[in-house]
């Protein structure tokens, strides 16, 4: 990891530089128009200054986004409707609820698939097909239908998150539960272990590394599900709603800061799973 530090830093700096120059290019037409209307001539440094500090720029600069995030995360009260902590929490709770449900469903399905041949043959192809369906297209319908039978708020979003996150878990867990080789299963059988004992003492421990890889994928997927689930609900609360209302009113800085908050959220959730993974691996003495 250490030898990656310098290259990563170089490329990140490069990206930021490109970003700043792009915001000059994209925002300049607005600045030039304004100057022309006021019969001014802009020098280059004035132009740069203007493009980097517009109120509704086409591409806000990193420091504008950073300032907006600082303002809406730390300076606003947490209960305020303008606080990103408030909106982030709403999205986070839907993400976590969907992630839990998805993990549970995924593990149960994987257990059924591994232990029952008929389930494996008849259900597994449909699980794979289910992911080639653009589920996010179902999002508006799930929300409208669930609200028409009385479920609003957290649950519809969690359902969408669940649908997106259960797939990586099923695939990973089926692989993991099947990872003990024939020799190990035979060994268990010579000890006259029951199917249940084989599951608890051999299959489950062996599947842990696969589980963690799937959990990371599932977590990222459920955040996407929660954000998209907020889009058709009429833009009330949550990071997705922030993006949608920003896009209605041309508040580009607001869109970008919601996007970055979502990115930080995703990174820290996946990071959290990595930390738990490192701890569990150490306790189970799994060497990677």
């Amino acid at each position, binding site marked *: 990891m250490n030898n990656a530090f310098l290259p990563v830093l170089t490329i990140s700096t490069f990206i930021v530089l490109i970003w700043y120059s792009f915001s000059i290019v994209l925002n300049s037409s607005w600045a030039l128009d304004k100057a022309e209307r006021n019969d001014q001539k802009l020098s280059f440094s004035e132009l740069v200054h203007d493009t980097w500090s517009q109120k509704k720029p086409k591409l806000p600069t990193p420091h504008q986004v950073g300032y907006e995030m600082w303002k809406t995360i730390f300076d606003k009260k947490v209960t305020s409707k303008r606080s990103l902590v408030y909106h982030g929490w709403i999205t986070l709770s839907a993400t976590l609820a969907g992630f839990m449900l998805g993990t549970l469903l995924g593990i149960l399905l994987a257990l059924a698939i591994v232990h029952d041949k008929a389930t494996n043959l008849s259900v597994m192809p449909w699980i794979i097909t289910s992911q080639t369906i653009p589920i996010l297209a179902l999002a508006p319908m799930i929300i409208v239908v669930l609200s028409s039978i009385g479920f609003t708020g957290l649950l519809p979003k969690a359902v969408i998150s669940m649908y997106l996150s259960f797939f990586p878990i099923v695939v990973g867990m089926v692989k993991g539960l099947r990872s003990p080789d024939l020799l190990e299963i035979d060994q268990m059988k010579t000890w006259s272990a029951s199917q249940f004992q084989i599951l608890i003492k051999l299959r489950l421990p062996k599947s842990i590394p696969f589980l963690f890889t799937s959990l990371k994928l599932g977590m990222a997927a459920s955040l996407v599900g929660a954000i998209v689930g907020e889009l058709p609900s009429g833009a009330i609360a949550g990071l997705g709603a922030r993006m949608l209302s920003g896009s209605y009113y041309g508040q580009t800085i607001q869109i970008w800061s919601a*996007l970055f908050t979502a990115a930080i959220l995703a990174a820290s959730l996946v990071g959290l799973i990595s930390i738990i993974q490192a701890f569990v691996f150490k306790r189970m003495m799994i060497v990677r």
Partner: protein
Amino acid sequence: MNSFFLFSIIFWIAAWTINIFIAQSNLAKTKMVLPPILFGVSLLLIWEASISAFDVSPVILPAPSLVFIKLVSSVSILWVDFVQTFVKGALSGYIFGCSAAFGVALLVDRFKFLERGLLPIGNFMAALPIIGTAPILVRWFGFDWESKSAVVTVMVFFPMLINTIQGLQMSDKIHRDLMQTYNATSFQTLIKLRLAAAMPFIFNGLKICSTLALIGAIVAEFFGSPIKGIGFRISTEVGRFALDMVWAEITIAAITGSLFYGGIVLLEKVVTFWHPSQRGRS
């Protein structure tokens, strides 16, 4: 409970019993095909029967037969939406994004320094909710298909990039040494050895991106679109509670997505016929 509902339940039990029987037999060909079809058909039957048995309003969940009638009667609208969303939006963005990522990967491959820096960043970007850039890109590129294509390009770029870079690292050292003893140039090594070895990874990326592309194009339409397109139709018809139309669009999207994915799997079988995961499965 009416008799149709009872029949669907009996059909389901019978289908499941047949599946158990097939699972224990050794009919290799039937094993792959029949059980999923039986399962799907019994699911559809139970759906249809439950709607009529429990008197579910079509506003909540329309019966499959209603959806099918709608599908057949509005083929022209569906075709316009399909062209707008899939051919213009998703496919163009998919081709553009995947080839751009492939090009960048080849470029990065020449410089170890770039590769070491780009791989962690690419991994990080691939886990981000890229779909959030949809509102921004729709503002930049306008409401028509160009913005959808741009969203898809951004979405597929990073998964494709990491898969290609990882694939290019896959060739064995001993094979590279052999190429060197043949006095192959680095370009020849790339074409004849390393790209071939990378193919399973490249196809993995292409498969992941095929589902992402359709999702990206549809979700981008929620942020503004001309009056056609799968995403546009779904969000407006949901507002009018015309759920049979919504389900018809979903059926089209599902069939498109599956065929797209299946097409790439087929291409993979042709291109990587030598790979262990493709052999011995005829």
